[in-house]
């Protein structure tokens, strides 16, 4: 059991978005405001943790040939639950995330963790792995949505920082998503190279 190592992997060295390059669609699409980013990040973390635990519990019963289909059914079940809960308790967030909540089913992060980690380990490490990877994903969403909301609309979590006419509206549009993520991954590669070079 090595919580610190798993946390470091999830947040930095094996960050699902910046290093493993998984889950691009939702990362690009919903990071226009901070509340969206938090809503999506928390939903994915919960679903990832639950599905990791469940798949890890079932790992001895699932036949090898149909495992992907089984994983997808498990994940789809949890996604439906989270979708209904969001609609009931946070209708605003459910409204603005729209079709991207059901699309968590095909978010590659969850399937990748199920395949590469949860199907080979005990429930507890699988749960911790889910939480750590989910945190890494949430962190990237937060950074991206903060940049895009601040520069694109001039607000920070809804509070106005500078007048809207000075904001670069472009960043809130699809273009901004691609550019921000491109720069973040470039930054990550730069840091990784520096760290490696220092050793």
């Amino acid at each position, binding site marked *: 059991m090595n919580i610190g190592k798993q946390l470091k992997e999830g947040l930095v060295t094996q960050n699902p978005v910046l290093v493993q390059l998984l889950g*691009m669609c939702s990362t690009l*699409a919903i990071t226009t405001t901070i509340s969206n980013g938090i809503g999506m990040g928390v939903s994915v973390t919960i679903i990832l943790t639950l599905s990791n635990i469940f798949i890890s519990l079932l790992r001895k019963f699932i036949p090898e040939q149909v495992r992907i289909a089984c994983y997808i059914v498990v994940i*789809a079940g949890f996604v439906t639950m989270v979708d209904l809960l969001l609609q009931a308790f946070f209708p605003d967030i459910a409204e603005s995330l729209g*079709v991207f909540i059901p699309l968590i*089913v095909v978010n590659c992060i969850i399937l990748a963790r199920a395949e590469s980690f949860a199907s080979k380990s005990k429930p507890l490490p699988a749960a911790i792995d889910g939480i750590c990877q989910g945190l890494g994903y949430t962190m990237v969403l937060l950074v991206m949505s903060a940049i895009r909301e601040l520069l694109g609309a001039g607000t920070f979590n809804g509070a106005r920082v500078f007048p809207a006419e000075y904001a670069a509206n472009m960043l809130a549009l699809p273009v901004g998503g691609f550019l921000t993520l491109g720069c973040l991954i470039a930054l990550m*590669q730069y840091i990784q190279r520096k760290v490696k070079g220092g050793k």
Partner: protein
Amino acid sequence: MEWTTLFDIALGAILINNFILAQFLGICPFMGVSKKMDTAVGMGFAVIFVMGLASALCYPVNLLLNNLGLKYMQTVAFILVIAALVQFVEMFLKKAIPTLYQALGVYLPLITTNCAVLGVVLLNVQNGYNFIESVVYGITGGAGFLLAIVLFASIRERLEFADPPKAFKGFPIALVTAGLMALCFMGFQGLKIPW
């Protein structure tokens, strides 16, 4: 059935609300298999095929779910239909058209986790399209995917010889390129049909 509505849907799916560049659906295959032109074309056609079929199949499934009062099972039912469909298409192509099967290779099973396919089905339901509109939206959405991925692949082949800053090598510069393409496609936003 009015042709103008269908034309509206088709134009919207291909240019104005392009699945990749405006709605961010199907980014993973868009980034993953756009390094070479021929694989990009193969993937594009496979996606058109599966998206059209999935739209057609999920329409009756959705009606059935609504009649049974099981609307909340939508996501689970749709993803199962898509997974089964992809498996079936794979088996059929292997038997009937082996050359096409060889050409598509590993991309066929990958389509199951392509969010554009599940996305188009969910959007069909959300927009309340009828059967023909759904199929048209599915096929033209796939055509939009093909257009974007072919354009992107041809840029990326050139990008191999470019000399970006070291930190931007590989994936980041591809993302920036995609961003610039999205900027170009925003020009289509002003496209309105005058009737």
